[in-house]
């Protein structure tokens, strides 16, 4: 299952949203990867997400594989739409 997102926040994805994202995705068993351009990383890793150096306007792609793939994709969608309000 895939989800394409355009990063809205001008500053990209800082530690707090990256952490919330990684933490939320880690609750699911599926393998989730985040790719931007040529780079692809493990979306359960806060450090890997941050190291992508995402900026506002970046087009990113989440791909989930596993039993709860659709649930994790849904969760990711909600997080971005609510701008990471916990």
């Amino acid at each position, binding site marked *: 299952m895939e989800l394409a997102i*355009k990063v*809205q*926040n*001008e*500053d*990209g994805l*800082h*530690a*707090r949203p990256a*952490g919330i994202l*990684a*933490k939320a995705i*880690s609750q699911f068993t599926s393998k989730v990867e985040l790719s931007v351009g040529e780079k692809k*990383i*493990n979306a*359960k*890793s*806060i*450090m*890997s997400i*941050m*190291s992508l*150096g995402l900026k506002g306007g970046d087009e990113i792609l989440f791909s989930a594989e596993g039993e709860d793939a659709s649930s994790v994709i849904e969760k990711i969608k909600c997080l971005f*739409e*609510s*701008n990471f*309000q916990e």
Partner: protein
Amino acid sequence: MAKSMLKGLAVSEGYAQGPVVVINFAHPEIQSGKANDIAAELKRFNDAIKKSEDQIQNLIKKKGAFLGSDEKKIFEAHLMMIADPEFTDQIATKIRDEQAFATRAVHEVAKGFADMLAALDDPYMQERSHDVKDISSRILRNLTGQSFELKQDTQKMILVTNDITPSLVAELDDENTLAVVCSQGGSTSHAAILLRNLEIPALFGVENVTVLLQGGDKVLVDAITGDLSIHPSEAEENLFAEKIKKYAIEKQELLELKDKDAVTGDGTRVFLYANIGSPAEVAALKKFNPDGIGLFRTEFLYLERKAPPTEDEQFEIYKFTLQAMNNKKTIIRTLDIGGDKEVPFLKIPKEENPFLGLRGLRLCLEREEIFRPQIRALLRASVYGQLYVMYPMVTTVAEFLAAQKLVEEEKDKLTKAGVKISPSIKYGIMIEIPAAALMAEAFVPYVDFFSLGTNDLIQYTCACDRQNPTVKNLYSSFEPAVYKLIEHTARVSQKYNKELSICGEMGGQTKVTSFLLGTGIRHLSMSGTLIPKVKKKLKDLNIEQCKALMPQLNDAKTALDVENILKRPNC
């Protein structure tokens, strides 16, 4: 011993003098070579991770009260990083595949991530790379059994070091640490933020300081100018001691003011409120103890997102804010945005002159699908505190009535759906457009309160953009034309007993407080950090003297005239 003066960057304000303790942090030993017992190395690593997590949890618990919410987040981010599966997996893999000692594996993997983050063209990410190094340090110290606690005698001292991390700052005995001097570090680093929160004066970037000083040496730390005096003379020490005393007295005065009501020298109560732009700022208001919120700007809900905030999302935020204010007056301003700001989902058509165009209440009345959810969220949240709803950029009574019609409709719908709404919500307007100021009396039968948005009032009255360098000299807090409008509004408010507050910058400018008091205004709203200063200023003012200024101010012909009148003693 030569006397000298070193220079650094004052990252946390204050003064300190005393003996130093010099600590040069050496990196824990990284073992190269191959480990024989891989299982043992893996266990050591996992134990070190667990220990590190426990230490950080304890730190958050122990020092939580002193750490601001942002700072607590630093340590929470540390916890998340330690739990990062890529981080721990890569280290475990290195131990297994390369038979690396745990220390080398941790050091190399952490360095890899730290370097990746440091390489990003973003100062924020470069700071995060320091976080990774901080975590790596902690894990390594736990691996090598090094004590993480800074052994401090119960003697007051100034810490001089070559490296400072948030973890280290959090471990400091802040009672006995008079100041911190570090040869490295940047002002926005988290260690600096923590030192500011703990109110420990600090100088960073003092080159070679750990080489130039020995334990026991006396220094004078001036964390206002950034000067570090080494081996001061007795005369210098005495002078400095006086400086410290004076500074402490000033600080204490401000602290004492916090819990006292704001009153003038003659005992007249003045109400001081805070302006905020997000719910995150509410927590910080505690230390200023405002009489309420005079302006809660709601634009943050609409900026930097691709979809408008939902009614529920807004409801949670307004509810949170009202509850946090504990029934103190809370003025929430409806969306005040226009074509000058990039808000894709609003799709405001391109205007020749957005500042005289569809913005503020005009935009909301035009775009009910944006306005109604905000109104509904406010109505629903009203039961949680003392809510004042304020409309921006109002020109005519008709606009206010149109807004109120919408409010009544939504109130009706909610009530029919069984939702409780507070019967005592107040509705009012920003007075920032000259027409509204001049016609304040026309609004009187309909509004519950007024709030003067002096920034825009000055701009619209003088037809100048304060951001435009070619005309910004026309923008002045001393402009007599604006004073006439403020005075007129104040007179109307007093005649009809309508609450009037100031929420523009003038509210927090002590150079014009006497004028505002002289007009009869008693409610001032400002950035929280200005409250102590204004409180102090009020004590130097006397209402009768302020009133006595009015005839002279009325005669003033220029901003300079006004400034000179207000510059006089006791003004």
